[in-house]
């Protein structure tokens, strides 16, 4: 926490941030339930529908505690222009069970909320195929975040191993690993990522494509945390308790794990949080260029790629919803990194 902030305010901020983080991840984890639609389901009669308005006041001016939606109808003579027709309405219900197509039969599905059929509730509108943007945003977040977290795990694993060797062993190993780190840091990693992905087979089913992106991100993102780990380990090596352990005859692995790694944990946690934020953006960028997760799996990048149209801002602004999603995720992770940053005042002397 910044010096000068009162401890109480800091506690509140920390609590709020924690709540926001938990909420964000719960929503994303529970996406299939929170999202009212299957993200791949195409509502072909209503492409580019604007976000459905939630109404609380009906035509005669009466208030309703339960929101309702109006039917939307095509403006004749246009393509994809709609107006509301509040002669037909349907209430929006929470905790719904409904039958959904499954193969050639149906099965029961539960959703957090939904409008009564046949009307639809597209909270963030629909895309060019009439797919619900809100559902795609949530499930896309799941894909993007899961991949980013997995990739951060890979990167941190590499960083801890290389950093610990370089920092503890010193000498030639340190020189070699540090040089490698500098090299990786010096590379324009986003371009390198795009080039590496483009060099690999394009025709991959979604799971393999995701695994490949995770590995690619992990192998390109370890350098900065690696350097941090190395510095922390090198500093700890000279501390009295480490020397004491060494004099007492403790083995190198024991010293590393018992005495040095606890110091590294804080560094690694912060680095991990920073990496997740970076990797979400990187994955979005890859998908934006068509190198990420293939259709119909939703991803923020592929959603934004579809929003690349001359008049997106004025005509189909709701397609830019992933931008808002990206900003929220980045801000939450940024704040998290600040909070988790080791406090110099409480650090070990």
């Amino acid at each position, binding site marked *: 926490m910044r010096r000068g902030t009162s401890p109480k305010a800091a506690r509140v901020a920390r609590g709020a941030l924690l709540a926001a983080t938990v909420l964000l991840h719960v929503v994303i984890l529970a996406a299939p339930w929170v999202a009212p639609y299957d993200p*791949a389901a195409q509502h072909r009669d209503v492409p580019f529908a604007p976000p459905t308005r939630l109404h609380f006041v009906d035509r005669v001016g009466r208030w309703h505690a339960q929101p309702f939606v109006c039917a939307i109808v095509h403006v004749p003579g246009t*393509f994809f222009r709609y107006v509301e027709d509040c002669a037909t309405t349907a209430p929006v219900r929470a905790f719904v069970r409904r039958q959904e197509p*499954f*193969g050639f039969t149906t099965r029961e599905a539960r959703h957090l909320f939904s409008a009564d059929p046949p009307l639809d509730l597209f909270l963030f509108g629909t895309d*060019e*195929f009439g797919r619900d943007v809100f559902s795609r945003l949530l499930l896309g977040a799941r894909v993007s975040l899961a991949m980013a977290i997995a990739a951060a795990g890979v990167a941190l694993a590499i960083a801890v191993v290389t950093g610990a060797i370089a920092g503890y062993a010193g000498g030639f190993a340190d020189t070699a690993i540090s040089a490698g780190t500098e090299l990786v840091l010096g590379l324009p990693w986003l371009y390198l990522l795009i080039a590496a992905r483009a060099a690999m087979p*394009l025709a991959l089913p979604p799971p393999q494509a995701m695994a490949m992106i995770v590995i690619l991100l992990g192998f390109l993102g370890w350098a900065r945390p690696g350097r941090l780990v190395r510095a922390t380990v090198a500093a700890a090596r000279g501390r009295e308790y480490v020397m004491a352990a060494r004099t007492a005859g403790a083995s190198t692995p024991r010293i590393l794990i018992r005495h040095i790694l606890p110091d590294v944990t804080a560094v690694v946690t912060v680095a991990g949080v920073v990496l997740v934020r970076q990797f979400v953006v990187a994955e979005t960028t890859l998908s934006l260029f068509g190198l990420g997760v*293939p259709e*119909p799996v939703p991803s923020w990048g592929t959603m934004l790629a579809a929003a690349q149209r*001359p008049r997106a801002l004025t005509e189909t602004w709701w397609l830019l919803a992933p931008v808002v999603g990206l900003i929220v995720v980045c801000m939450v992770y940024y704040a998290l990194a600040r909070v988790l940053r080791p406090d110099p005042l409480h650090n070990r002397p």
Partner: protein
Amino acid sequence: MRIGAFCVLLCLAGLAEQRTPAPAGGSARRGGQLVVAERSAPRSFNPVVITDNPSKTVLERINADLIHINRRTFKTEPALAASWTASRDGREYTLKLRPGLKFSDGHALTADDVVFTFQVYLDEKLAAPQRDLLVVAGKPIGVRKVDDLTIVVSLAEAYAVADRMFDGIAILPRHVLGAAYAAGTLAQQWTVATAPASIVGTGPFRVSEVVPGERVVLERNPHYWKRDGHGEALPYLDRLVLLTVPSTDAELLRFKAGELDVMSRPTAEQFESLTGGQYNTVDVGPGLEYNFLVFNLSDGAAGTPLARRQAWFGQEDFRRAMSAAIDRQAIVKLVYRGRAEPLWGPITGANAAWRNTSIPHPPRSVDRARQLLRQAGFTWRDDGTLLDRAGTQVEFNIIVSASRPERQQMATLIQSDLAEIGIRVTISPLEFGAFVDRLTRKRDFEACIHGIGSGDADPNSDVNVWLSSGNLHLWNPNAAKPPTPWEAQIDTLMRNQMSVRATGERKRMFNEVQALLAEHEPMIFLASPHILVAAKPTLGNFQPAVLPHYALWNVDELYWRAASRD
């Protein structure tokens, strides 16, 4: 990229001021310049080496052919040749040149130049792209001079559309290129670095300035042979400027900013944003392009995963089921915003003369698709997944060119359509070069969505698609002999119609070809987009056509209405 385009835009903002005033005493239509965009800069001005569209656009403005196909009527009309007659057996054509023809450098054009031209194009060492068009029944055509204005062209056997063969064959100046041809350096002539004055043609314009990667400026050819109805020399325009604008979005922005006079082929969405009276927008209707889904039926995949899938693709009922399950109306509506025509055969509504109107247009039917699959021995798991006889899950990959967003959208719709009958489809958008390589050379794909835009309305223009030995016979190209009886039948019909000269008889044969294609569905035809074009409303004689170049085909007749010319 956008930023780059914007910089170019700023640099060229002064162009509009460069319009020259109409010469005093000239006709009311004479003068002004037309600024249009091309996706990339021309690579060459040499007809012997050009194959790309931007270069062709320039090439066709600075050159003329002997006999020309009218882009609106699809009929042949006299160009450099004022008239022609065929011998009784259809193997000899006598062409009469217009008297007094001159190249753009003022040098007279005679039969010697025509003979030289065909000698060049037919030279095997040069491998000019025109050569294939000038080979009939495996033998190159013979061209000989009778007198300065008369040429006789002889064919190995009667050829139904011999007169169409001359369209687009630019007549070359022997006095300029003769020495280079003799020295064997013809292919290196007329590059983008060549001095514009030495690039000589017979078209309405001639090259005046080349700024590589940025623009090509063409100026009026004062020696152009064509005149309008009042005897006035064409073209009306003084200059034609072709700017390099790398994306259609950038082209739209610059058209709206008034820097471009014509927006050639906007997408349906862009077109919609141009309608409303401010511009002259023309929906010409369907063009000749047909988009389709095709399965790889090539041999030589034995033992690979592809071979297992080919066991499905090879079954006609399987292909018919795919066709029945695909929602063509959704493609028309969602991909093209209604500005397209759903297709069940390769001949679009633009080509009424050759279309077989008795081919059925069955609407989408999941029930029919299921019935066909059941008939072919497929079954379904409880969750709706389609299984073949051996119990293997039916899934395949569709490749599509990443540079064609509309085909990617078609793929996404088809993916969802086929999911309804239990088939899992994956889509791989590939960079265009890699896509073509897999499709035509490596044959390393399962299914593909592609389109072919015929260059002519006549069935002969797509003969290499329908003949089983053709290199564009995309489901199984370059076959030594037809793999199925119906393909053999198509081969015979296509070969016969080439030599029959009675149009009614040719039409009957080609109708039969279309019926065979509809019955066996080697390609599943999807949709044909409308040709959309927009121009400034003051551009006179603007009559877009369904054949390329859609907007500039009659550039010699385009003019600025008086008020707009500055």
